[in-house]
Protein backbone atom coordinates (compact mmCIF):
# COMPACT_ATOMS: atom_id res chain seq x y z
CA UNK A 1 0.00 0.00 0.00
CA UNK A 2 2.77 2.41 0.90
CA UNK A 3 4.59 1.64 -2.34
CA UNK A 4 1.44 2.57 -4.27
CA UNK A 5 1.17 5.77 -2.29
CA UNK A 6 4.75 6.71 -3.12
CA UNK A 7 4.20 5.84 -6.78
CA UNK A 8 1.08 7.99 -6.85
CA UNK A 9 3.06 10.90 -5.39
CA UNK A 10 5.76 10.60 -8.04
CA UNK A 11 3.14 10.24 -10.80
CA UNK A 12 1.39 13.30 -9.47
CA UNK A 13 4.59 15.31 -9.73
CA UNK A 14 5.19 14.04 -13.23
CA UNK A 15 1.74 14.99 -14.42
CA UNK A 16 2.16 18.65 -13.55
CA UNK A 17 5.75 19.07 -14.62
CA UNK A 18 6.35 20.23 -18.21
CA UNK A 19 6.57 17.29 -20.59
CA UNK A 20 9.88 18.47 -21.99
CA UNK A 21 11.62 18.50 -18.65
CA UNK A 22 14.09 15.64 -18.36
CA UNK A 23 15.19 16.28 -14.80
CA UNK A 24 13.58 16.49 -11.40
CA UNK A 25 12.05 19.88 -10.67
CA UNK A 26 14.41 22.50 -9.31
CA UNK A 27 11.84 25.21 -8.75
CA UNK A 28 8.38 25.16 -7.24
CA UNK A 29 5.63 23.94 -9.52
CA UNK A 30 3.45 26.86 -10.55
CA UNK A 31 -0.13 26.38 -11.69
CA UNK A 32 -2.96 28.70 -12.67
CA UNK A 33 -0.62 31.45 -13.82
CA UNK A 34 1.41 31.34 -10.64
CA UNK A 35 -1.56 31.62 -8.28
CA UNK A 36 -0.82 28.14 -7.00
CA UNK A 37 2.71 27.12 -6.08
CA UNK A 38 3.71 23.70 -4.88
CA UNK A 39 7.02 22.95 -3.24
CA UNK A 40 8.51 19.81 -1.82
CA UNK A 41 11.18 18.60 0.56
CA UNK A 42 12.31 15.01 0.59
CA UNK A 43 14.96 13.75 2.98
CA UNK A 44 16.19 10.20 3.43
CA UNK A 45 18.27 9.60 6.53
CA UNK A 46 20.02 6.46 7.63
CA UNK A 47 22.09 6.25 10.76
CA UNK A 48 23.41 4.05 13.53
CA UNK A 49 20.99 2.16 15.76
CA UNK A 50 20.01 4.25 18.76
CA UNK A 51 19.33 1.94 21.73
CA UNK A 52 19.52 4.91 24.08
CA UNK A 53 16.65 6.64 22.25
CA UNK A 54 18.50 9.94 22.09
CA UNK A 55 17.17 10.83 18.65
CA UNK A 56 13.63 9.50 18.82
CA UNK A 57 10.92 11.96 17.95
CA UNK A 58 8.19 9.69 19.25
CA UNK A 59 7.89 6.04 20.22
CA UNK A 60 8.43 4.71 16.70
CA UNK A 61 10.46 7.32 14.80
CA UNK A 62 14.13 8.11 15.06
CA UNK A 63 15.39 11.27 13.39
CA UNK A 64 18.36 9.22 12.22
CA UNK A 65 16.30 6.62 10.34
CA UNK A 66 13.68 8.56 8.56
CA UNK A 67 12.31 9.08 5.09
CA UNK A 68 10.36 12.30 5.20
CA UNK A 69 8.36 13.80 2.37
CA UNK A 70 6.82 17.24 2.72
CA UNK A 71 4.61 18.78 0.10
CA UNK A 72 3.60 22.37 0.68
CA UNK A 73 1.33 24.59 -1.34
CA UNK A 74 0.20 28.19 -1.45
CA UNK A 75 -2.93 29.37 -3.20
CA UNK A 76 -3.05 33.09 -3.76
CA UNK A 77 -6.74 33.94 -3.66
CA UNK A 78 -6.30 37.66 -4.26
CA UNK A 79 -4.19 40.39 -2.75
CA UNK A 80 -5.72 39.95 0.69
CA UNK A 81 -5.98 36.19 1.11
CA UNK A 82 -3.57 33.28 0.73
CA UNK A 83 -4.30 29.68 1.63
CA UNK A 84 -1.29 27.69 2.78
CA UNK A 85 -0.94 24.06 3.59
CA UNK A 86 1.54 21.29 4.02
CA UNK A 87 1.22 17.53 4.21
CA UNK A 88 3.92 15.22 5.45
CA UNK A 89 4.62 11.54 5.51
CA UNK A 90 7.27 9.77 7.51
CA UNK A 91 8.60 6.38 6.40
CA UNK A 92 5.89 6.28 3.73
CA UNK A 93 3.09 6.20 6.26
CA UNK A 94 -0.06 8.24 5.81
CA UNK A 95 0.22 11.79 4.56
CA UNK A 96 -0.81 13.94 7.51
CA UNK A 97 -1.65 17.64 7.52
CA UNK A 98 1.17 19.58 9.10
CA UNK A 99 -0.02 23.07 8.29
CA UNK A 100 -3.33 24.36 7.00
CA UNK A 101 -4.16 27.99 7.44
CA UNK A 102 -5.45 31.07 5.75
CA UNK A 103 -3.29 34.19 5.74
CA UNK A 104 -5.22 37.42 5.61
CA UNK A 105 -3.56 40.73 4.83
CA UNK A 106 -6.20 43.33 5.73
CA UNK A 107 -4.28 46.26 4.25
CA UNK A 108 -2.13 45.50 1.24
CA UNK A 109 0.30 48.33 1.94
CA UNK A 110 0.86 47.46 5.59
CA UNK A 111 2.95 44.54 6.77
CA UNK A 112 0.28 43.08 8.99
CA UNK A 113 -0.88 39.50 8.50
CA UNK A 114 -3.44 37.43 10.34
CA UNK A 115 -3.01 33.65 10.14
CA UNK A 116 -5.93 31.42 11.10
CA UNK A 117 -5.81 27.64 11.30
CA UNK A 118 -2.90 25.30 11.94
CA UNK A 119 -0.31 28.07 11.98
CA UNK A 120 3.52 28.26 12.04
CA UNK A 121 5.08 28.23 15.51
CA UNK A 122 5.31 31.64 17.12
CA UNK A 123 7.81 30.56 19.74
CA UNK A 124 11.55 30.23 19.17
CA UNK A 125 13.72 30.20 16.08
CA UNK A 126 14.30 26.57 15.10
CA UNK A 127 10.66 25.47 14.96
CA UNK A 128 10.11 27.27 11.66
CA UNK A 129 13.19 25.83 10.00
CA UNK A 130 12.94 22.14 10.72
CA UNK A 131 13.19 21.29 7.02
CA UNK A 132 16.32 19.34 6.18
CA UNK A 133 17.34 22.11 3.81
CA UNK A 134 17.39 24.63 6.67
CA UNK A 135 19.17 22.37 9.12
CA UNK A 136 22.92 22.23 8.48
CA UNK A 137 23.19 18.97 10.44
CA UNK A 138 21.05 15.85 10.59
CA UNK A 139 20.05 15.81 14.26
CA UNK A 140 17.72 18.38 15.76
CA UNK A 141 18.46 20.69 18.67
CA UNK A 142 17.62 18.81 21.88
CA UNK A 143 15.01 21.34 23.01
CA UNK A 144 12.92 20.62 19.92
CA UNK A 145 13.37 16.86 19.71
CA UNK A 146 14.50 15.13 22.90
CA UNK A 147 11.58 13.54 24.67
CA UNK A 148 11.41 14.41 28.36
CA UNK A 149 9.42 12.24 30.74
CA UNK A 150 6.47 14.66 30.96
CA UNK A 151 3.20 13.83 29.26
CA UNK A 152 0.13 16.04 28.90
CA UNK A 153 -2.28 13.11 29.18
CA UNK A 154 -0.75 11.27 32.13
CA UNK A 155 0.81 12.60 35.32
CA UNK A 156 2.93 11.16 38.13
CA UNK A 157 1.45 10.84 41.57
CA UNK A 158 4.57 12.09 43.36
CA UNK A 159 8.22 13.05 42.98
CA UNK A 160 9.37 9.48 43.53
CA UNK A 161 7.37 8.25 40.54
CA UNK A 162 8.77 11.00 38.30
CA UNK A 163 12.35 10.31 39.40
CA UNK A 164 11.85 6.64 38.72
CA UNK A 165 11.18 7.44 35.05
CA UNK A 166 14.29 9.58 34.45
CA UNK A 167 15.72 9.09 30.97
CA UNK A 168 12.79 7.05 29.65
CA UNK A 169 10.94 9.79 27.82
CA UNK A 170 10.60 7.80 24.61
CA UNK A 171 8.12 5.47 26.37
CA UNK A 172 6.71 6.33 29.76
CA UNK A 173 3.60 5.58 31.83
CA UNK A 174 2.13 7.21 34.95
CA UNK A 175 -0.43 6.44 37.54
CA UNK A 176 -2.97 9.15 36.67
CA UNK A 177 -4.57 9.84 33.32
CA UNK A 178 -4.01 7.75 30.21
CA UNK A 179 -2.66 4.37 31.43
CA UNK A 180 -1.07 3.45 28.08
CA UNK A 181 2.65 3.66 27.46
CA UNK A 182 3.56 6.61 25.22
CA UNK A 183 6.32 9.09 24.57
CA UNK A 184 6.92 12.26 26.57
CA UNK A 185 7.19 15.72 25.10
CA UNK A 186 10.17 17.86 24.13
CA UNK A 187 10.45 21.40 25.48
CA UNK A 188 9.15 22.71 22.16
CA UNK A 189 7.75 20.40 19.53
CA UNK A 190 9.24 20.67 16.05
CA UNK A 191 6.95 17.98 14.70
CA UNK A 192 3.46 19.42 15.03
CA UNK A 193 2.01 22.85 14.61
CA UNK A 194 -0.57 24.42 16.85
CA UNK A 195 -4.03 25.58 15.90
CA UNK A 196 -5.38 29.06 16.47
CA UNK A 197 -5.06 32.67 15.43
CA UNK A 198 -1.77 34.47 14.89
CA UNK A 199 -1.02 38.09 14.11
CA UNK A 200 2.28 39.15 12.60
CA UNK A 201 3.46 42.68 11.92
CA UNK A 202 6.76 44.28 11.26
CA UNK A 203 9.30 46.18 9.28
CA UNK A 204 12.70 45.16 7.93
CA UNK A 205 14.18 45.94 11.39
CA UNK A 206 11.50 44.89 13.87
CA UNK A 207 8.99 42.07 13.66
CA UNK A 208 6.40 41.02 16.21
CA UNK A 209 4.10 38.04 16.36
CA UNK A 210 1.40 37.03 18.82
CA UNK A 211 -0.85 34.00 18.82
CA UNK A 212 -3.65 32.32 20.72
CA UNK A 213 -3.66 28.57 20.16
CA UNK A 214 -5.15 25.33 21.45
CA UNK A 215 -2.05 23.52 22.73
CA UNK A 216 1.28 24.53 24.23
CA UNK A 217 4.74 24.74 22.72
CA UNK A 218 5.51 21.21 23.97
CA UNK A 219 2.17 19.81 22.91
CA UNK A 220 0.64 21.59 19.91
CA UNK A 221 -2.90 20.45 19.27
CA UNK A 222 -5.55 20.46 16.62
CA UNK A 223 -8.35 20.17 19.19
CA UNK A 224 -7.92 21.52 22.68
CA UNK A 225 -7.77 18.94 25.48
CA UNK A 226 -8.41 21.32 28.37
CA UNK A 227 -10.30 24.50 29.11
CA UNK A 228 -7.53 27.01 28.46
CA UNK A 229 -5.68 28.54 25.51
CA UNK A 230 -2.00 29.26 25.04
CA UNK A 231 -0.80 32.79 24.48
CA UNK A 232 2.53 33.13 22.70
CA UNK A 233 4.52 36.09 21.46
CA UNK A 234 7.77 36.73 19.70
CA UNK A 235 9.75 39.89 19.05
CA UNK A 236 12.54 39.87 16.52
CA UNK A 237 15.07 42.63 15.90
CA UNK A 238 17.28 42.92 12.83
CA UNK A 239 19.45 45.94 13.60
CA UNK A 240 21.96 45.27 10.83
CA UNK A 241 22.09 42.88 7.90
CA UNK A 242 22.97 39.40 9.08
CA UNK A 243 22.05 39.87 12.74
CA UNK A 244 18.77 38.57 14.12
CA UNK A 245 17.97 38.81 17.81
CA UNK A 246 14.76 37.20 18.97
CA UNK A 247 12.86 36.77 22.20
CA UNK A 248 9.83 34.56 22.73
CA UNK A 249 7.39 33.71 25.48
CA UNK A 250 4.47 31.32 25.71
CA UNK A 251 2.10 30.19 28.43
CA UNK A 252 -0.83 27.82 28.35
CA UNK A 253 -2.49 24.93 30.20
CA UNK A 254 -0.44 21.80 29.55
CA UNK A 255 -2.15 18.93 31.31
CA UNK A 256 -5.24 17.53 29.64
CA UNK A 257 -8.58 17.68 31.40
CA UNK A 258 -8.83 13.92 31.90
CA UNK A 259 -5.39 13.58 33.48
CA UNK A 260 -5.96 16.62 35.72
CA UNK A 261 -9.32 15.30 36.86
CA UNK A 262 -7.82 11.91 37.60
CA UNK A 263 -5.10 13.46 39.74
CA UNK A 264 -6.81 16.28 41.63
CA UNK A 265 -10.48 16.37 40.61
CA UNK A 266 -12.55 18.70 38.43
CA UNK A 267 -11.90 22.36 37.67
CA UNK A 268 -8.14 22.50 38.01
CA UNK A 269 -6.88 21.83 34.51
CA UNK A 270 -6.10 25.51 33.81
CA UNK A 271 -3.64 25.57 36.72
CA UNK A 272 -1.26 23.02 35.22
CA UNK A 273 0.58 25.16 32.75
CA UNK A 274 3.67 25.22 30.62
CA UNK A 275 5.45 28.57 30.56
CA UNK A 276 8.39 28.95 28.20
CA UNK A 277 10.85 31.74 27.55
CA UNK A 278 13.34 31.77 24.74
CA UNK A 279 16.13 33.91 23.41
CA UNK A 280 17.94 33.44 20.13
CA UNK A 281 20.65 35.14 18.14
CA UNK A 282 21.76 34.52 14.59
CA UNK A 283 24.72 36.18 12.95
CA UNK A 284 26.02 35.52 9.50
CA UNK A 285 28.63 37.14 7.34
CA UNK A 286 30.64 35.95 4.39
CA UNK A 287 30.96 32.19 4.75
CA UNK A 288 30.01 31.99 8.45
CA UNK A 289 26.67 31.39 10.10
CA UNK A 290 26.39 31.26 13.89
CA UNK A 291 23.28 30.58 15.95
CA UNK A 292 22.51 30.51 19.64
CA UNK A 293 19.22 29.56 21.20
CA UNK A 294 18.35 29.24 24.86
CA UNK A 295 14.99 28.06 26.20
CA UNK A 296 13.62 27.85 29.73
CA UNK A 297 10.46 25.87 30.22
CA UNK A 298 8.49 25.63 33.46
CA UNK A 299 5.74 23.10 33.98
CA UNK A 300 3.26 23.22 36.85
CA UNK A 301 1.98 19.71 37.43
CA UNK A 302 -0.65 18.38 39.85
CA UNK A 303 0.57 17.64 43.36
CA UNK A 304 -1.20 14.52 44.53
CA UNK A 305 0.74 13.22 47.52
CA UNK A 306 4.17 13.26 49.16
CA UNK A 307 6.96 13.25 48.33
CA UNK A 308 5.67 16.29 46.51
CA UNK A 309 6.98 17.64 43.25
CA UNK A 310 8.97 20.84 43.66
CA UNK A 311 7.25 23.18 41.25
CA UNK A 312 7.80 24.41 38.73
CA UNK A 313 9.52 21.54 36.98
CA UNK A 314 12.09 23.46 35.00
CA UNK A 315 14.05 22.47 31.92
CA UNK A 316 16.77 24.67 30.46
CA UNK A 317 18.23 24.13 27.02
CA UNK A 318 21.26 25.75 25.45
CA UNK A 319 22.21 25.27 21.84
CA UNK A 320 25.06 26.78 19.83
CA UNK A 321 25.42 26.02 16.15
CA UNK A 322 27.85 27.09 13.45
CA UNK A 323 28.28 26.55 9.74
CA UNK A 324 31.21 27.42 7.53
CA UNK A 325 31.34 27.12 3.76
CA UNK A 326 34.67 25.64 2.76
CA UNK A 327 34.18 25.60 -1.01
CA UNK A 328 31.27 26.25 -3.35
CA UNK A 329 28.83 23.45 -2.54
CA UNK A 330 30.74 22.17 0.50
CA UNK A 331 30.26 23.18 4.12
CA UNK A 332 31.11 22.02 7.62
CA UNK A 333 28.84 22.46 10.64
CA UNK A 334 28.75 21.76 14.35
CA UNK A 335 26.27 22.05 17.19
CA UNK A 336 26.63 21.77 20.94
CA UNK A 337 23.46 21.17 22.92
CA UNK A 338 22.68 20.74 26.58
CA UNK A 339 19.46 20.02 28.43
CA UNK A 340 19.32 20.55 32.20
CA UNK A 341 16.48 19.95 34.65
CA UNK A 342 15.55 21.35 38.06
CA UNK A 343 15.98 19.20 41.16
CA UNK A 344 13.25 17.43 43.06
CA UNK A 345 13.40 15.22 46.14
CA UNK A 346 12.04 11.70 46.03
CA UNK A 347 12.28 8.91 48.54
CA UNK A 348 15.15 8.68 50.97
CA UNK A 349 16.78 6.16 48.70
CA UNK A 350 16.41 8.39 45.64
CA UNK A 351 17.49 11.62 47.29
CA UNK A 352 17.46 14.91 45.40
CA UNK A 353 18.02 14.68 41.68
CA UNK A 354 17.17 16.48 38.44
CA UNK A 355 13.60 15.41 37.56
CA UNK A 356 14.87 14.06 34.22
CA UNK A 357 18.36 12.97 33.26
CA UNK A 358 20.45 15.84 31.84
CA UNK A 359 21.60 15.32 28.25
CA UNK A 360 24.46 16.73 26.22
CA UNK A 361 24.92 16.33 22.49
CA UNK A 362 27.80 17.36 20.30
CA UNK A 363 27.23 16.94 16.59
CA UNK A 364 29.66 17.67 13.80
CA UNK A 365 29.13 17.15 10.13
CA UNK A 366 28.81 18.75 6.78
CA UNK A 367 27.15 18.71 3.44
CA UNK A 368 28.03 18.62 -0.21
CA UNK A 369 25.72 19.84 -2.94
CA UNK A 370 25.42 17.31 -5.74
CA UNK A 371 23.36 19.97 -7.43
CA UNK A 372 21.74 23.09 -6.10
CA UNK A 373 18.75 21.28 -4.63
CA UNK A 374 20.27 17.86 -3.99
CA UNK A 375 22.52 17.71 -0.95
CA UNK A 376 24.31 14.86 0.80
CA UNK A 377 24.93 15.39 4.50
CA UNK A 378 27.05 13.38 6.88
CA UNK A 379 27.24 13.81 10.62
CA UNK A 380 28.48 12.22 13.81
CA UNK A 381 26.97 12.98 17.19
CA UNK A 382 28.06 12.13 20.69
CA UNK A 383 25.23 11.91 23.21
CA UNK A 384 25.69 11.75 26.97
CA UNK A 385 22.92 11.24 29.52
CA UNK A 386 23.63 11.66 33.18
CA UNK A 387 21.25 9.21 34.80
CA UNK A 388 18.37 6.92 33.92
CA UNK A 389 18.32 3.27 33.02
CA UNK A 390 19.13 3.44 29.32
CA UNK A 391 22.48 3.76 27.54
CA UNK A 392 24.30 6.68 29.16
CA UNK A 393 26.52 7.39 26.16
CA UNK A 394 26.23 6.86 22.42
CA UNK A 395 28.16 7.87 19.36
CA UNK A 396 25.89 7.89 16.33
CA UNK A 397 26.70 8.43 12.68
CA UNK A 398 24.22 9.27 9.96
CA UNK A 399 23.94 10.16 6.30
CA UNK A 400 21.14 12.14 4.74
CA UNK A 401 20.22 12.82 1.16
CA UNK A 402 17.87 15.72 0.70
CA UNK A 403 16.10 17.10 -2.29
CA UNK A 404 13.87 20.14 -2.48
CA UNK A 405 12.02 22.13 -5.07
Amino acid at each position, binding site marked *: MTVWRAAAFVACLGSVWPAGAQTLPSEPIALAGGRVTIGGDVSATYGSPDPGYFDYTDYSHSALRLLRIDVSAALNAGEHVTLLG*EVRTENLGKFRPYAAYVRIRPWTKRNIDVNVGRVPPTFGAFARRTYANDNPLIGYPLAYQYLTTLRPDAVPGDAAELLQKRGTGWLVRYRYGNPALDGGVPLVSAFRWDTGVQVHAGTEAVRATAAVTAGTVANPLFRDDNSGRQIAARLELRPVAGLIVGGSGARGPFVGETAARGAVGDGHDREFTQTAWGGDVEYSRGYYLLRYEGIVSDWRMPIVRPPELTLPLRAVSTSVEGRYKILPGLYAAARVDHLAFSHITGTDAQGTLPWDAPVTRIEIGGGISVQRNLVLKLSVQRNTRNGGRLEPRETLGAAQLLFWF
Partner: protein
Amino acid sequence: MLVLLSVSFVFAPQALTQAPPRHGIGAIRGRVELRRVATAAERRPGVAELGSPRGRDLPDLRRSVVYLESAPRGAFEPNEGGRAVMDQRNETFAPHVLAISIGTTVDFPNSDMFYHNVFSLSKTQRFDLGRYAAGHSRSVRFDRPGIVRVFCEIHSHMNAFILVFSHPFFALTDAEGRYRIENVPAGTYNVVAWNEGTWSDPKSVGVTGGGIAEQDFSLR
Protein backbone atom coordinates in the same frame (compact mmCIF):
# COMPACT_ATOMS: atom_id res chain seq x y z
CA MET B 1 23.03 14.51 -22.57
CA LEU B 2 21.99 16.17 -25.81
CA VAL B 3 21.88 19.49 -24.09
CA LEU B 4 25.32 19.04 -22.58
CA LEU B 5 26.79 18.14 -25.94
CA SER B 6 25.34 21.16 -27.59
CA VAL B 7 26.61 23.42 -24.82
CA SER B 8 30.15 22.19 -25.06
CA PHE B 9 30.06 22.32 -28.83
CA VAL B 10 28.77 25.82 -28.90
CA PHE B 11 31.27 27.29 -26.52
CA ALA B 12 34.36 25.17 -26.89
CA PRO B 13 37.31 26.94 -28.48
CA GLN B 14 38.22 23.75 -30.35
CA ALA B 15 35.24 24.37 -32.61
CA LEU B 16 36.67 27.59 -33.85
CA THR B 17 37.42 26.81 -37.46
CA GLN B 18 34.71 27.00 -40.00
CA ALA B 19 35.25 29.30 -42.94
CA PRO B 20 38.47 31.23 -43.43
CA PRO B 21 37.78 34.97 -43.23
CA ARG B 22 37.60 36.96 -46.40
CA HIS B 23 38.58 40.61 -46.62
CA GLY B 24 36.27 43.09 -44.93
CA ILE B 25 33.83 42.97 -42.10
CA GLY B 26 30.08 43.05 -41.93
CA ALA B 27 27.27 42.55 -39.45
CA ILE B 28 24.43 40.18 -38.74
CA ARG B 29 21.10 41.42 -37.52
CA GLY B 30 17.62 40.11 -37.10
CA ARG B 31 14.96 39.31 -34.57
CA VAL B 32 14.33 36.46 -32.17
CA GLU B 33 10.69 35.58 -31.82
CA LEU B 34 9.75 33.76 -28.65
CA ARG B 35 6.77 31.50 -29.23
CA ARG B 36 6.62 30.84 -25.49
CA VAL B 37 8.08 33.26 -22.98
CA ALA B 38 9.46 31.42 -19.98
CA THR B 39 7.88 32.26 -16.63
CA ALA B 40 9.94 33.55 -13.75
CA ALA B 41 10.71 31.12 -10.95
CA GLU B 42 8.13 31.39 -8.22
CA ARG B 43 8.92 31.64 -4.56
CA ARG B 44 8.64 28.43 -2.61
CA PRO B 45 5.28 28.36 -0.80
CA GLY B 46 6.82 29.65 2.44
CA VAL B 47 4.37 27.88 4.71
CA ALA B 48 6.66 28.36 7.71
CA GLU B 49 6.94 32.13 7.25
CA LEU B 50 5.01 34.13 9.81
CA GLY B 51 4.00 36.85 7.36
CA SER B 52 3.60 37.56 3.67
CA PRO B 53 6.79 37.77 1.65
CA ARG B 54 8.08 41.17 0.62
CA GLY B 55 7.47 42.37 -2.91
CA ARG B 56 10.02 41.65 -5.58
CA ASP B 57 10.79 42.56 -9.18
CA LEU B 58 10.26 39.97 -11.87
CA PRO B 59 13.20 39.26 -14.15
CA ASP B 60 12.95 40.08 -17.85
CA LEU B 61 13.02 36.65 -19.48
CA ARG B 62 12.49 37.93 -23.03
CA ARG B 63 16.15 38.71 -23.62
CA SER B 64 17.85 36.19 -25.85
CA VAL B 65 21.46 35.77 -26.89
CA VAL B 66 22.46 35.29 -30.53
CA TYR B 67 25.98 34.15 -31.29
CA LEU B 68 28.21 32.58 -33.86
CA GLU B 69 28.53 28.90 -33.17
CA SER B 70 32.03 29.03 -34.57
CA ALA B 71 34.23 31.99 -35.29
CA PRO B 72 37.04 32.86 -37.65
CA ARG B 73 40.67 32.18 -36.79
CA GLY B 74 42.21 35.03 -34.92
CA ALA B 75 38.99 35.89 -33.14
CA PHE B 76 40.20 34.47 -29.87
CA GLU B 77 42.78 36.98 -28.75
CA PRO B 78 42.79 37.12 -24.98
CA ASN B 79 40.39 39.65 -23.56
CA GLU B 80 42.14 42.42 -21.69
CA GLY B 81 39.58 42.14 -18.96
CA GLY B 82 36.33 43.98 -19.42
CA ARG B 83 33.84 44.45 -16.59
CA ALA B 84 30.15 43.79 -16.36
CA VAL B 85 27.61 44.19 -13.58
CA MET B 86 24.88 41.89 -12.36
CA ASP B 87 22.99 43.74 -9.65
CA GLN B 88 20.86 42.19 -6.89
CA ARG B 89 17.86 44.40 -6.46
CA ASN B 90 14.39 43.65 -5.07
CA GLU B 91 15.25 39.95 -4.89
CA THR B 92 16.11 39.77 -8.57
CA PHE B 93 19.34 39.61 -10.51
CA ALA B 94 19.47 42.48 -12.97
CA PRO B 95 20.07 41.85 -15.74
CA HIS B 96 18.73 38.32 -15.78
CA VAL B 97 21.06 37.39 -18.66
CA LEU B 98 24.60 38.53 -19.21
CA ALA B 99 26.64 37.68 -22.30
CA ILE B 100 30.37 38.25 -21.89
CA SER B 101 33.73 37.26 -23.31
CA ILE B 102 36.19 35.18 -21.35
CA GLY B 103 38.42 37.32 -19.19
CA THR B 104 35.53 39.55 -18.16
CA THR B 105 35.06 40.31 -14.49
CA VAL B 106 31.47 40.51 -13.31
CA ASP B 107 30.61 42.62 -10.27
CA PHE B 108 27.69 41.49 -8.12
CA PRO B 109 26.64 44.48 -5.99
CA ASN B 110 23.94 44.04 -3.38
CA SER B 111 21.39 46.85 -3.67
CA ASP B 112 18.91 45.37 -1.19
CA MET B 113 18.74 46.15 2.51
CA PHE B 114 19.21 42.50 3.37
CA TYR B 115 21.73 39.77 2.62
CA HIS B 116 22.16 37.91 -0.60
CA ASN B 117 24.56 35.05 -1.29
CA VAL B 118 25.47 34.64 -4.94
CA PHE B 119 26.76 31.25 -5.98
CA SER B 120 27.05 28.90 -8.91
CA LEU B 121 27.70 25.18 -9.08
CA SER B 122 28.02 25.23 -12.87
CA LYS B 123 30.79 23.14 -14.37
CA THR B 124 32.01 26.18 -16.26
CA GLN B 125 32.69 28.13 -13.09
CA ARG B 126 31.92 27.24 -9.49
CA PHE B 127 31.93 30.09 -7.03
CA ASP B 128 30.29 31.21 -3.83
CA LEU B 129 30.57 34.86 -2.83
CA GLY B 130 29.22 34.41 0.68
CA ARG B 131 26.81 36.78 2.40
CA TYR B 132 27.30 40.51 2.10
CA ALA B 133 25.18 43.51 2.86
CA ALA B 134 23.74 46.43 0.94
CA GLY B 135 26.29 48.70 -0.69
CA HIS B 136 28.91 45.96 -0.92
CA SER B 137 29.98 44.13 -4.03
CA ARG B 138 32.03 41.07 -4.88
CA SER B 139 33.43 40.01 -8.22
CA VAL B 140 34.17 36.93 -10.28
CA ARG B 141 36.42 36.72 -13.31
CA PHE B 142 35.19 34.27 -15.92
CA ASP B 143 38.02 32.50 -17.73
CA ARG B 144 36.25 29.56 -19.34
CA PRO B 145 33.56 29.57 -22.00
CA GLY B 146 30.18 28.08 -21.18
CA ILE B 147 26.92 28.73 -19.42
CA VAL B 148 26.95 29.70 -15.78
CA ARG B 149 23.73 29.51 -13.80
CA VAL B 150 23.74 31.93 -10.93
CA PHE B 151 21.61 31.60 -7.81
CA CYS B 152 21.12 33.19 -4.42
CA GLU B 153 21.46 30.76 -1.54
CA ILE B 154 19.05 32.73 0.63
CA HIS B 155 16.34 33.49 -1.95
CA SER B 156 15.82 30.33 -3.97
CA HIS B 157 13.67 32.06 -6.60
CA MET B 158 16.58 34.31 -7.64
CA ASN B 159 18.44 32.99 -10.64
CA ALA B 160 20.28 34.32 -13.66
CA PHE B 161 22.40 33.21 -16.60
CA ILE B 162 25.87 34.28 -17.62
CA LEU B 163 26.92 33.12 -21.10
CA VAL B 164 30.67 33.23 -21.46
CA PHE B 165 32.04 33.21 -25.00
CA SER B 166 35.54 32.63 -26.21
CA HIS B 167 34.99 35.12 -29.07
CA PRO B 168 33.32 38.51 -29.37
CA PHE B 169 30.62 37.60 -31.90
CA PHE B 170 27.46 37.59 -29.82
CA ALA B 171 24.66 39.99 -29.00
CA LEU B 172 21.83 40.31 -26.52
CA THR B 173 18.40 41.06 -27.92
CA ASP B 174 16.52 44.20 -26.97
CA ALA B 175 13.01 44.31 -25.54
CA GLU B 176 11.53 43.67 -29.00
CA GLY B 177 13.83 40.73 -29.66
CA ARG B 178 16.11 42.56 -32.10
CA TYR B 179 19.84 41.93 -32.17
CA ARG B 180 22.89 43.05 -34.14
CA ILE B 181 26.31 41.39 -34.11
CA GLU B 182 28.93 43.86 -35.29
CA ASN B 183 32.39 43.52 -36.81
CA VAL B 184 31.94 40.03 -38.15
CA PRO B 185 34.69 39.11 -40.64
CA ALA B 186 33.29 38.19 -44.04
CA GLY B 187 32.50 34.51 -44.28
CA THR B 188 29.84 31.94 -43.67
CA TYR B 189 28.88 31.09 -40.12
CA ASN B 190 26.46 29.02 -38.16
CA VAL B 191 24.42 31.35 -35.99
CA VAL B 192 22.43 30.20 -32.96
CA ALA B 193 19.84 31.89 -30.74
CA TRP B 194 19.44 31.03 -27.07
CA ASN B 195 16.76 31.89 -24.55
CA GLU B 196 16.39 30.48 -21.01
CA GLY B 197 18.08 27.20 -21.79
CA THR B 198 16.48 26.71 -25.20
CA TRP B 199 18.57 26.77 -28.37
CA SER B 200 17.54 27.31 -31.96
CA ASP B 201 18.88 25.08 -34.72
CA PRO B 202 22.03 26.64 -36.19
CA LYS B 203 21.35 28.83 -39.21
CA SER B 204 24.00 29.29 -41.88
CA VAL B 205 24.57 32.98 -42.56
CA GLY B 206 26.87 34.50 -45.14
CA VAL B 207 28.50 37.81 -44.26
CA THR B 208 30.07 40.02 -46.91
CA GLY B 209 32.50 42.87 -46.37
CA GLY B 210 30.52 46.00 -45.57
CA GLY B 211 27.25 44.11 -45.78
CA ILE B 212 24.55 43.34 -43.22
CA ALA B 213 23.20 39.82 -43.21
CA GLU B 214 19.66 39.30 -41.97
CA GLN B 215 18.66 36.26 -39.91
CA ASP B 216 15.56 35.82 -37.79
CA PHE B 217 14.94 33.06 -35.28
CA SER B 218 11.93 31.51 -33.71
CA LEU B 219 12.26 29.77 -30.35
CA ARG B 220 9.58 27.53 -28.91
